[in-house]
């Protein structure tokens, strides 16, 4: 079934990072990342644990700064807007750049419906009809609608792990973001659920820019058109996924993708 996204995602944007540095207190976690993330494509970020890939992702929607002692330097452009510019409200940036986390995190006190509606509802949308429409659209977009349409009032946490993660994707899509960030979205899921999430990511990328962090190289190869390889806080190589995996330009990339370390 073709997911129905009409009306939900009305525009999307690419992201341009220029010499981005990030710190946790004194730890220099990102050391000058520059990359252009094109719109309406899946861009994967791979690399060993601790290479800074999640940190980079969290810089893209200003979640990094929530950690006490965290700092960012450099420029990140969301379309035309410098997201770390003076007077830019991180809340507005986070509405434009949605995020799905490693572990599915539906709101434990909310029903399936309320979870999907949470972004709009908490932003002040009170019109029941609008909420119902958006909930259905976003659940359809996350290919969850058919499984939950008869039990929308059940707790979000009553779903299986894979369903919960798709509910989280629906929740993120419901506020019509321009970019969707996915931080190892399938690492806690079984292979079947993983495939569904990957399929979903590829599908959504027809309408929205997706950046996915993964430690799973096969996953990057399956879902993404572009891949960036991070190592020790630096972007070693960035290019079309099939080229990076078949003809890596850097020795370290080759060592990593052939499993010599990581």
């Amino acid at each position, binding site marked *: 079934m073709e997911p129905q996204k009409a009306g939900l995602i009305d525009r999307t944007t690419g992201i341009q990072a220029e010499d981005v540095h990030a710190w946790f207190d004194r730890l220099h976690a990102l050391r000058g990342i520059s990359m252009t993330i094109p719109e309406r494509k899946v861009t994967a970020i791979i690399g060993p644990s601790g290479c800074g890939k999640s940190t980079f992702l969290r810089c893209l929607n200003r979640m990094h700064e929530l950690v006490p002692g965290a700092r960012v330097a450099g420029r990140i452009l969301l379309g035309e807007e410098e997201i770390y510019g003076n007077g830019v409200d991180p809340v507005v940036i986070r509405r434009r750049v949605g995020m799905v986390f490693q572990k599915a*995190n539906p709101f434990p006190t909310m029903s399936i419906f309320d979870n999907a509606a949470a972004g709009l509802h908490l*932003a002040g949308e009170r019109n029941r009809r609008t909420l119902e429409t958006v909930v259905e659209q976003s659940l359809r977009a996350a290919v969850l609608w058919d499984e939950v349409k008869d039990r929308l009032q059940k707790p979000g946490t009553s779903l299986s792990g894979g369903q919960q993660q798709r509910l989280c994707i629906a929740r993120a899509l419901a506020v019509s973001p321009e970019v969707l960030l996915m931080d190892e979205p399938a690492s806690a899921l079984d292979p079947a659920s993983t495939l569904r999430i990957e399929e979903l990511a590829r599908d959504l990328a027809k309408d929205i820019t997706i950046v996915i962090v993964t430690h799973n190289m096969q996953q990057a190869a399956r879902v993404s058109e572009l891949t960036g390889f991070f190592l020790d806080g630096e972007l070693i190589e960035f290019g079309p996924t099939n080229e990076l995996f078949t003809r890596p330009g850097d020795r370290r990339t080759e060592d990593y993708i052939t499993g010599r370390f990581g």
Partner: protein
Amino acid sequence: MDRRYQVRRATNALMAAVTFGCTLLVLTPLVVILAFLARTGLSALNGDFFTQLPGAAGEPGGGMANAIAGTLILVALAAGIGIPIGVLGGTYLSEFASTRVSRTARFTADVMNGIPSIVMGLFAYVLIVLPMRHFSALAGGVALGVMLIPTVMRTTEEIVRLVPQSVREAALALGIPQWKTMLRVVLPTAAAGIVTGIMVGVARVAGETAPLLFTAFGNRFWNRDLLQPIAALPIQIFAYAISPFDDWHRQAWAGALVLVTLVLLVNIMARYAAGRQVKLR
């Protein structure tokens, strides 16, 4: 059989018996008190007890209606003061855990928890009774409310801290401002646990006598004016228990039974609330 194994088995059986015995010992005072209260208190419990004012000294009959109402009013006042300050303060403590203010407040709350309740009464006496020049329900409510703050604050802090970071992040990543994330996502997630803490605190202060002695003071008549002295069950029980009249002694037991039942009810409600808390671990 191996001799060491036999010794070990015997030791095991002995220790199991000792711990079981101690558990029974813990329950004994509670059971004895309840049985005694029921036996002596029930005989004086009747319709009059709940509807009538205290009788004249030495005359049989009369009730504690005003004291029951007074205790409810005092507890309501205490809750009105203690709950908002406690919940908001606890929220601050959990969200800004390592600031100097937080560490000081946490330490102060723990000290306050250990302060004898009569000192809390003194505090309200100096703060309210002395400037107003007379005892009042308000002063009693403040004394109890101040006692309630540390309990509510520390429970709130503990429960709110248990709400996983991932829940906050989910809300923040949706572009929900921090204050709204706190108010609409984190606090509701912790709500049942906070309510439990509140009820345990309320049950505790409801039975306090010492802080009321020179604040609410007690009153033999109906009083709806918060600025005047008001009756309270614990004070009434105390007054009746030290009186020379047999009928009043029986009524004191009845009052104690009512008070214990109230506290028990609140505790049962607290357990119910605790059962409704969503799992946080």
